[in-house]
C-alpha cells in the first residue's frame, strides 16, 4: 500500500492543537519582549529611576526630612562658585586619567605575560584576580595599615633597609595622598584590565603571528601590526568601563582619606556624599554627583561612535 508522505506524518488534530497563549508566546515579537522585560524592569527600577530622581533632586532645595522647593539650576550655580568644587573636579580628572593610563599599560603588559606558556600558569592567572575579588572596603583597610604613619610596612623598610631618617607621609602630604589613592586604585583595577585583555589576546588566530613571522616581523612589529590592532576594540571597551568606575569611585577614598588632607583627594562621589548625608543638603549633593554626568556622557558617546566606525 502506497502511503503518501503527508499521510505518514498526519496525527490527530486534537494532539496538534495548542493553547492560544502558547501560540502568542511563540511569536518572535512577544517572546523577545518577554525575555527583555526582566532586565528592562531591573534597569528602570535601579538605574533609570535613581538617575531621574537624582536629576529631579538637583533642581530642588531639598534639606533632609523636609519637602523640596524647586530652584531650577541654582544648585549648579552654587557648585560653580564653590572653590572646593573646582578642586574636586581637578582631583577627579587627575585620579581618573592617571589611574586609567596606569591600569591600561600595566594590564596590557600583564596580559601579554599571562598569555605565555609557563609553569603554574593557571594558578598565577587565578591569583591575579585576587585584588579584584576582595571587597574594596576590606582591601582598603589593609592599605590603610600599609600607609599608616606609625605601622607602615613601607616606611619600616625605608627606615631599616634604606636607612632613611625622614619617611614619607603617604596620606598626610597632599601630592603623596593623591599618588597613594591612584596606586591603590590601579592595584585594584589592574586584574580587570589584564583578564579582559588576556581573553582578547586568546581570540587572535595564531596563523596571523606565523604569517607575520614568515614575512620577517620581529616581536615588536608583531605587537604593533597584529596584536594591538586586533586588541583595540577590547581595549576601548575595557577602558570605557574602567573610566566610568574610576570617575565615580567612592569607597576607596572614603575609607582611606575621607577626601583629606584639605580636600586634596576629594572626588565628586565623596564630596557629594558629604554634602548630602553629612550636611543634609540632598539637592546640592545631587547636583555635585550629576556634575560627573556630562564628562562621562561625552566619553561614552565618543567611544561608542568609534566602535561603530570600527
Amino acid at each position, binding site marked *: 500500500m502506497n502511503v503518501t508522505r503527508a499521510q505518514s506524518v498526519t496525527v490527530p488534530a486534537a494532539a496538534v492543537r495548542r493553547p492560544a497563549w502558547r501560540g502568542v508566546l511563540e511569536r518572535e515579537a512577544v517572546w523577545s519582549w518577554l525575555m527583555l522585560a526582566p532586565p528592562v524592569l531591573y534597569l528602570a527600577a535601579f538605574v533609570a529611576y535613581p538617575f531621574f530622581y537624582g536629576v529631579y533632586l538637583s533642581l530642588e532645595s531639598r534639606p533632609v526630612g523636609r519637602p523640596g522647593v524647586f530652584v531650577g539650576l541654582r544648585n549648579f550655580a552654587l557648585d560653580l562658585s564653590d572653590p572646593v568644587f573646582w578642586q574636586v573636579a581637578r582631583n577627579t580628572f587627575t585620579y581618573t586619567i592617571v589611574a586609567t593610563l596606569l591600569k591600561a599599560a600595566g594590564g596590557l603588559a600583564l596580559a601579554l605575560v599571562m598569555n605565555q606558556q609557563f609553569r603554574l600558569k593557571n594558578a598565577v592567572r587565578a591569583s591575579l584576580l585576587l585584588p579584584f575579588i576582595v571587597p574594596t572596603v576590606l582591601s582598603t583597610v589593609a592599605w590603610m595599615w600599609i600607609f599608616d604613619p606609625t605601622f607602615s610596612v613601607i616606611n619600616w623598610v625605608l627606615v631599616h633597609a634604606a636607612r632613611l631618617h625622614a619617611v614619607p607621609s603617604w596620606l*598626610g602630604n597632599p601630592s603623596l595622598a593623591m599618588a597613594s589613592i591612584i596606586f591603590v586604585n590601579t592595584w585594584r583595577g589592574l586584574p580587570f584590565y589584564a583578564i579582559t585583555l588576556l581573553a582578547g589576546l586568546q581570540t587572535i588566530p595564531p596563523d596571523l603571528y606565523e604569517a607575520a613571522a614568515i614575512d620577517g616581523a620581529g616581536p615588536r612589529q608583531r605587537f604593533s601590526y597584529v596584536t594591538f590592532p586586533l586588541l583595540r576594540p577590547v581595549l576601548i571597551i575595557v577602558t570605557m568601563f574602567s573610566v566610568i568606575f574610576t570617575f565615580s569611585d567612592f569607597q576607596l577614598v572614603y575609607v582611606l582619606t575621607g577626601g*583629606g588632607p*584639605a*580636600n586634596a583627594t576629594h572626588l565628586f562621589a565623596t564630596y557629594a556624599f*558629604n554634602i548630602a548625608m*553629612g*550636611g543634609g543638603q540632598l539637592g546640592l549633593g545631587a547636583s555635585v554627583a550629576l556634575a560627573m554626568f556630562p564628562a562621562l556622557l561625552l566619553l561614552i558617546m565618543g567611544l561608542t561612535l568609534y566602535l561603530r566606525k570600527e
Partner: protein
Amino acid sequence: MTGIAQPLSRRGFLRLSAGAAGAALVRPGPAAAQKAQTLSILHENSFIKTFDEYFRQTLAPEYQKAAGVRINYELASVGSLQTRVTTVAETGSGPDITLNFFNWPYLYDEKYVDLSDIAAEIGGQNGGWYQSAKEATFVNGRWKALPFGNVGQLMVWRTDWFAEIGVHRFPGTWDELLEAGTKLKARGHPFGFELGHGFGDNHGWLYPLLWSYGGREVDRDGKAVVLDSAETARAVDFCRTFFRQTMVEDVLGWTDPNNNKAFLGQQISCTNNATSILWAAKRDFPEIAKVIDQSQNPKGPTGQRYHLLNSWSHSIFTHTPDREAAQAFLRWLMQKPQLSRWYEAGDAYYAPFLHGYDDAPMWKAEPRNIPYKESLATSHLPGWPGPASRAMSESVSKYVVVDMFAKACAGASTRDVIKTATAQIKQIYGAS
C-alpha cells in the same frame, strides 16, 4: 561598690510609665491605634563594647519582662549612623527610636516626635539639664531629642614624658602647651592632633582653638559671617606654629583611628580625643594606662577655654506606629535605676547631661575622667555662638574650619586660607 542600682520591678515600671499610659488613653492619636509588641532602637557601635552589651543583655530583657515589649538594639558601624538615619527619615520606615550626634535633632526635626514633656520630667527629677544639652536638642522651643551624654574631646597626654621636661600638670594655655610640645618633639615625643578628614577628632580641637582665640564662624544671630577677623588670623598663625614645632606631617592626613593608634603605639605624647584611648590602654596596655592623664583644653588669649559638644541623644521617629510605647520606653530608660547602670557600663565615656549625675559613683571609679564632666560647662556645637542650624551641618561636612587650619599648616598663607573659608561660609549660610 559600683553603685549599680537594682533593676526596676514590673510594678515600679508600671508606676513610672503611668503618665504615658494615661496620656495614651485620654488622647489616642492615630498612631496609637497599633499597639507595639516590639520597638527598635538604632545606635552606632560604641567604642566601649560593654556599653552595647549591657543594653542588649540586661536592659532590653528587663524592659521586655517589665512591659512586655521586645526591644531590638540595631547597631550601625562606626561612621555610618547618619546615612542610616537619613534613609529612615526619608523613607519613613525602619527603627522607631534613634541615637543622634551633634545637632542632628535640627536636621531631622520634622521627622522627630516632640519629647518636651519627658525632657521636663527627667530634668526635674535629676537636678536639671546642662545648658549644653539644650543647645543640641532644643529645636524651635521643643525638645526633639532626650539628651543622653557627651563624648568629650579633651587632651590626652603622657605624664611620664611630660615629667621628663619638668611639666607635671597639663599646661593651662595654648602657648604653654606649644612650649612643652616643642621640647617634647625635640626629645622624640611629638604631639599628634588630627588635621585630616575624620569624623570628630579634628573638629574636636580646632573649633575650641578658634574660639579660645576669639574667632567665630558666624555671629550670635547665625547670619553674619565673622570668620575673617584678626582673632581668626592669630588662631591660624598659632596653629601653623603649633603644627610645625610639635607635630609630624602625617597628622594632615589622619582620620579618627590614627591618633588612637599612634598614642597606644607610643609614637605621640599628646593628642585630643575622647576617653577611648585610656579605656583601650587599661584593657590592652596597662603599663601605658598608668602614665596617661586627661585634661581640659588649654585657654587661649581670651582667657577662656572651650570644648566641642558631641552630644548623644535619642529621638523617636514620627513614623513609629506606637509613639506612646516608644515614649514609655524612653521614659523608663532615662530613669535613674536604668540610666545610672548604663552610664557605668560605658565607663564614663558618656558624660551625663543631668546635674544629678555630677557626683555619680562612675566619676569616683576613674578620677582621670572627671575633666570630661567639667568640660560640659564650656562645650558648644560647631558654629557656636550661632544657633544650631542646617548650615552648621553643611559647614562641618565640608570641613571648612578644619581645612582652613590644615591648609595653613601645609604652607598656605593665613590670608588665603581665611579668605577661602570665609567665601565658603558665606555661601553656606547664605544659601541654606
